């Protein structure tokens, strides 16, 4: 009898152990470390909330926070709208479309590190492909990665390009789950294209849309490889985002306590965005 009650818990114990060791423990340890001054070697010195105080009064941190939010906003808007438009275009299941879809998807399976290197070359001011093309069609060259006003947007282009195929795939398959008879009923109901889109297509896609926006928000906050390889946070810290900032403080300056405090801030930020998102848009999602 007792065993029967315990059995389900025993069954999920291995999975829970993995989550505990690799998810819960690091988070708890990060929270713990954020109250200490530590350089990874010497003794941990408890300093209370000082790391948080330093963080909030730091102008660097404010810039980094701003960069992160700008990056998030740009990449979510670009990724969602482009993948949606592309899916609209590719939703008919033809041989050409299958090929195009596979092509768009290809970058998704390449590692971010390789992609970052490829795009570093593409975006090189003097010898890069992009400027070469711009010159060919008679446009002025762009300082893709060295202009503080452009660099962040260049990184957004790279990450959107990489993720586009995946989001498009999700949208295309979501399109295919909308039954044709709904559109037929709408034709008989004399619905104009905009009404069809607003009343049928959009609501039927809403779970997918919701998922894509949320995963893009979370992914944008975690962006690291492109920054590390293509800009190292520069020029003038214009591409320094929270994830890269944490890495710099943790593993370059060995200020583990401060890095942990920023890590906690990042976690809270993502959490707040997620909850806000669920409370606002999440209510309007139609689940079948």
């Amino acid at each position, binding site marked *: 009898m007792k065993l029967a009650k315990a059995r389900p818990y025993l069954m999920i114990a291995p999975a829970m152990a993995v989550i505990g060791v690799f998810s819960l423990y690091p988070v708890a340890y990060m929270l713990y470390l954020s109250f200490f001054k530590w350089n990874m070697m010497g003794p941990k010195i408890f300093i209370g909330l000082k790391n948080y105080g330093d963080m909030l009064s730091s102008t660097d941190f404010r810039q980094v926070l701003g960069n992160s939010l700008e990056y998030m906003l740009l990449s979510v808007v670009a990724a969602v709208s482009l993948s949606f438009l592309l899916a609209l275009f590719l939703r008919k299941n033809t041989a050409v479309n299958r090929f195009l879809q596979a092509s768009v998807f290809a970058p998704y399976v390449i590692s971010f590190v390789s992609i970052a290197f490829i795009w570093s070359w593409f975006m090189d001011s003097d010898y890069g492909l992009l400027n070469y093309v711009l010159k060919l069609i008679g446009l002025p060259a762009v300082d893709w990665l060295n202009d503080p006003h452009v660099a962040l947007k260049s990184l957004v282009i790279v990450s959107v390009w990489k993720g586009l195929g995946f989001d498009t795939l999700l949208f295309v398959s979501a399109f295919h789950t909308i039954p044709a008879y709904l559109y*037929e*009923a709408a*034709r008989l*109901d*004399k*619905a104009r294209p905009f009404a069809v889109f607003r009343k049928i297509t959009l*609501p*039927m896609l809403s779970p997918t849309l919701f998922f894509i926006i949320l995963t893009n928000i979370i992914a944008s906050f975690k962006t690291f490889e492109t920054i590390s390889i293509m800009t190292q946070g520069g020029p003038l810290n214009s591409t320094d985002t929270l994830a890269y900032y944490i890495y710099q403080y943790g593993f370059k300056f060995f200020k583990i306590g401060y890095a942990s405090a920023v890590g906690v801030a990042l976690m809270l930020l993502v959490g707040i965005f997620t909850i806000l998102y669920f409370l606002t848009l999440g209510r309007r999602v*139609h689940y079948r």
Partner: protein
Amino acid sequence: MPDSCRHSMTGGAMRKIELRGIHKSYGAEKVLEGLDLEIEEGSFTVLLGPSGCGKSTILRIIAGLESFSSGKLSIDGKDMRDVEPGDRDIAMVFQNYALYPTMNVYENIEFGLKNRQVPKDERSRRIREIADLVGLGDYLKKKPQFLSGGQRQRVALARAIARKPQIFLMDEPLSNLDAKLRAQIRTDLIELHRHLGSTFVYVTHDQVEAMSMGTRIVLLEEGKIRQSAGPEELYASPANIFSARFIGTPPMNIVASSEAMPNIPKDARFVGFRPERAGIALDPGDVPAGAISLPGELSAREMLGAEILYRIECGGQSVSVRLYDNKRIPYGRVLAYARRENLLFFSGDGERLAEA
């Protein structure tokens, strides 16, 4: 139904639908080859046939949801080729209802009215009137997913009625309902048709639905019309073996003609008779004079309440006989017989022969 409602829904011109030489194929597969069909205004026309006979395609062509390669479709004499489905003054009830899952019942009914710029007050008045008519008054705020199959069916119907179309198209609207509900909605549809006075075109593979509701039945097989007639005529005077066998449960008995059968036309290859127009004799002497008789083995007996259904195996052909006499005939050797006036004769290719 309240009287005011009746007035608001009838009136206006009723519609006659004409299809002339319609060709339609899906890829290499030809579905319709030169179909000619006329649907009388105000009729309850049922397109009946086995699956794949093209009945749904015809309905969808009338609706404008399906294109056709050649031929002409006109409604009220007007060519429909370039007329959008929404402008044809038709409403359709789909087999799976096709309700908009993100809208509640009210919005589902309202959508078509809104798109046609019916004023708000008029919309709300009409929707409440129709919701009461089909018994949905309490469900207006619910989404389709929270409704039963029967309720969804009613929403689909209400959505169609609200538009006050001159033509109703229905594509197997009862096939997803249980038997009891089906029978009930069948009656409702007959009443509805009488009240609205508009043209109903109804697609089904169920001959019971066709016979019970249709004022005219168009029987189709492989894209061709095999017979088009009122239910009484279709039952009593089938034009071919396909018609004879498709209508009626159990279907008409069709047996090969033989020398032993007295007084039948010489080019008749098959003889048909309805199970209820046949009898069973225990002894050759009991067979009425002039009737054809088939000796066989009584193999099954079904007591159905008012009647008993017998199945007799007559040398490779099985014959059904329906008797309204509750005295059971014992299993064993018997003779199935049918009187001369109850026989129908068919040629070798299954066409009905004129009475000899």
